[in-house]
């Protein structure tokens, strides 16, 4: 006798429980593959509360979607493709979708280590937050750390962090500890519009606003001593987390290609349930141009975070009266969470050679895929050649930023990530409350005062509304998100950090 799988239904969408924390929307109608949601009961209730499931199901209509579209534990409604979504499409006969990458190309996070302890920092919080806020451009119209002329923008798009190294904004060690060593070789700046370049010129080295921030944190918990040691992390250590992306340049690249695809591949667009999923067929001229432009925007974002790193080092030097080298302000890792990359994965197949989930596979085939991660983080385990040499034996660091009241996590790519999620895990806590509702629920100044008085967290922002919109209460429980990632083996817990100072636009 076969057990009937547990099912749930939300707004007409049926989910079948595959196993603990894994739910599947079966393939039907125009879906080219099933969809999977990785969530506990509590997270599933939140995920099903908006249009996340509908958007995830829509994503399975993309041509060449392989095995299934997946929603990470922090998933929530986005536009077109859900935030927290992972979709791997065949690079030979599938497609690439700007909407499945998102507007903020290579939005991502990096963490800097220091040799400071929390005790070293206590008493300097206000000076530090004021100095960081004064020196790291944030908000709208705050300019950038570098006033980029046309040649500068071209060089950044072409060479990424190699440009920063040549100009004295980075060290060799920074490049060695960044995803792809801070340069996408497939970048094609000639496919980035002048309009996008115009927007990038005065934003090079800036946080922006929304959920982007720079946060000084202390390590409060170490869960895996051996891996933490490899990452150079220990309890009570001060670290810095920087979260931002490719600014207006990346946003414009996405916008430009959505419109080009609409005009040139309307037949494909007509078959998709949401216009924002606009996709260019693999092998088409537009697919190649978008991929080249997106890779150039990825380089721009890495330089953006690197310039902020450079400025942060100068601030720490002044506040702590020591050289950045003496403070051992080294890059732990920099990882993107809005990106599409050509990657080769071992795909499980059935007797007909069709891609199927690992548990149904009778064989595996190496396939080149465009892996779209929109609000999802690459989480490769030990052994993958794409992981920097410094971490290849232990696995890729995964940085999961939380809200400014809840702290963040450092994970390591899990052994199950390749078979379950094309080497991916969550990217953050994930919102549960809209920005408009948050502004009605919270008052920025009150949030700031409470964080300072109750939790000793010093927050400074350009706009009180931003603080209200980003109040800790608008986010999911990051502990639960990480618990599911860890339990599934897609991203394993290494350490937890707690905020000390936070600046945002």
């Amino acid at each position, binding site marked *: 006798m076969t057990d009937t799988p547990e099912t749930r239904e939300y707004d007409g969408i049926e989910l079948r429980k595959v196993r603990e924390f894994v739910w599947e929307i079966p393939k039907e109608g125009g879906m080219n593959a099933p969809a999977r949601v990785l969530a506990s009961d509590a997270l599933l209730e939140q995920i099903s509360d*908006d249009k996340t499931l509908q958007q995830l199901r829509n994503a399975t209509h993309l041509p060449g979607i392989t095995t299934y579209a997946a929603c990470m534990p922090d998933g*929530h*409604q*986005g*536009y*077109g493709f859900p*935030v927290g979504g992972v979709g791997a499409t065949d690079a030979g006969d599938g497609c690439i979708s700007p909407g499945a990458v*998102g*507007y*903020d190309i290579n939005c991502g996070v990096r963490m800097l280590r220091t040799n400071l302890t929390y005790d070293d920092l206590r008493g300097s919080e206000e000076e530090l937050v004021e100095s960081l806020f004064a020196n790291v451009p944030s*908000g*709208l*119209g705050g300019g950038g750390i570098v006033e980029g002329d046309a040649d500068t923008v071209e060089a950044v798009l072409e060479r990424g962090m190699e440009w920063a190294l040549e100009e004295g904004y980075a060290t060799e060690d920074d490049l060695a500890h960044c995803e792809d060593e801070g340069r996408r070789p497939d970048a094609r700046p000639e496919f980035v519009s002048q*309009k996008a370049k*115009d*927007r990038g010129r*005065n*934003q090079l080295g800036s946080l*922006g*606003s*929304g959920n982007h921030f720079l946060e000084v944190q202390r390590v409060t918990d170490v869960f895996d001593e051996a891996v933490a040691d490899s990452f150079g992390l220990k309890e009570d250590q001060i670290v810095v987390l920087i979260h931002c992306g490719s600014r*207006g340049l990346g*946003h*414009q690249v*996405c*916008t430009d290609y*959505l*419109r080009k695809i*609409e*005009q040139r591949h309307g037949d494909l667009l007509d078959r998709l349930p*949401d*216009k*924002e999923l*606009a996709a260019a067929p693999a092998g088409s001229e537009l697919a190649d141009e978008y991929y080249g432009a997106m890779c150039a925007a990825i380089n721009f974002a890495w330089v953006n975070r690197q310039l902020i790193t450079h400025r942060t080092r100068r601030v720490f030097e002044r506040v702590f009266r020591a050289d950045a080298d003496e403070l051992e302000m080294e890059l732990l890792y920099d990882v993107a969470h809005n990106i599409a990359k050509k990657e080769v994965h071992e795909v499980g197949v059935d007797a007909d050679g069709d891609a199927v989930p690992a548990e149904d596979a009778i064989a595996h085939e190496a396939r080149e895929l465009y892996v779209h991660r929109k609000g999802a983080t690459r989480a490769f385990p030990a052994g993958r050649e794409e992981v920097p040499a410094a971490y290849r034996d232990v696995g890729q660091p995964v940085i999961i930023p939380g809200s400014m009241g809840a702290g963040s996590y450092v994970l390591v790519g899990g052994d199950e990530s390749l078979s379950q999620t094309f080497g991916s895990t969550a990217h953050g806590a994930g*919102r*549960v*409350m*809209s*920005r*408009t*509702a948050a502004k009605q629920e919270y008052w920025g100044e009150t949030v700031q005062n409470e964080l300072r008085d109750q939790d000793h967290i010093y927050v400074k922002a*350009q*706009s009180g*509304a*931003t603080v209200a919109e980003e109040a800790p209460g608008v986010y999911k429980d990051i502990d639960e998100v990480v618990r599911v990632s860890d339990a599934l083996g897609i991203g394993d817990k290494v350490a937890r950090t707690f905020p000390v100072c936070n600046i945002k*636009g």
Partner: protein
Amino acid sequence: MSDDTQRDAPDTADSDASGRFELRDHTADVAVAATADSLGGVFAAVADGLTAAMCEEIPDGGDRFDLRVRAESPEAALFDYLDQCIYERDVRAVLPSDHRATVRSDGDGWLVEASARGIPLADVVARDVKAVTYSEMELAETDGGWRAYVVFDV
């Protein structure tokens, strides 16, 4: 929309003689729902909603500037117009406000001729809106005029 007194930009406001917008809940982003008597009026009302999503208190000052876009359909014209507003914001370093627009079909497509008052970003506390999206976009003629619904990426 061109009064000389500083005023708040609430979540609901007149856009021009007939245009109104409302900021709507969206989990991660922000949506604008707008109505107006005319197609141009509803375009301007959505743009006013975009401005309100970036800034609660809109001050006086700034110079008006013109925008002009042409697209193959009314929806594409609305998308391109709002994208142009965001582009002008970043390149001119101004917050576009007090939007005015006319929209017409001229045989080659849909032409938007618009203007906005550009308030220097240095004079205003404003937040970024990254981009206009097609997600759930609606632009429809009603018995009384036009209505639109647009989601912006924050």
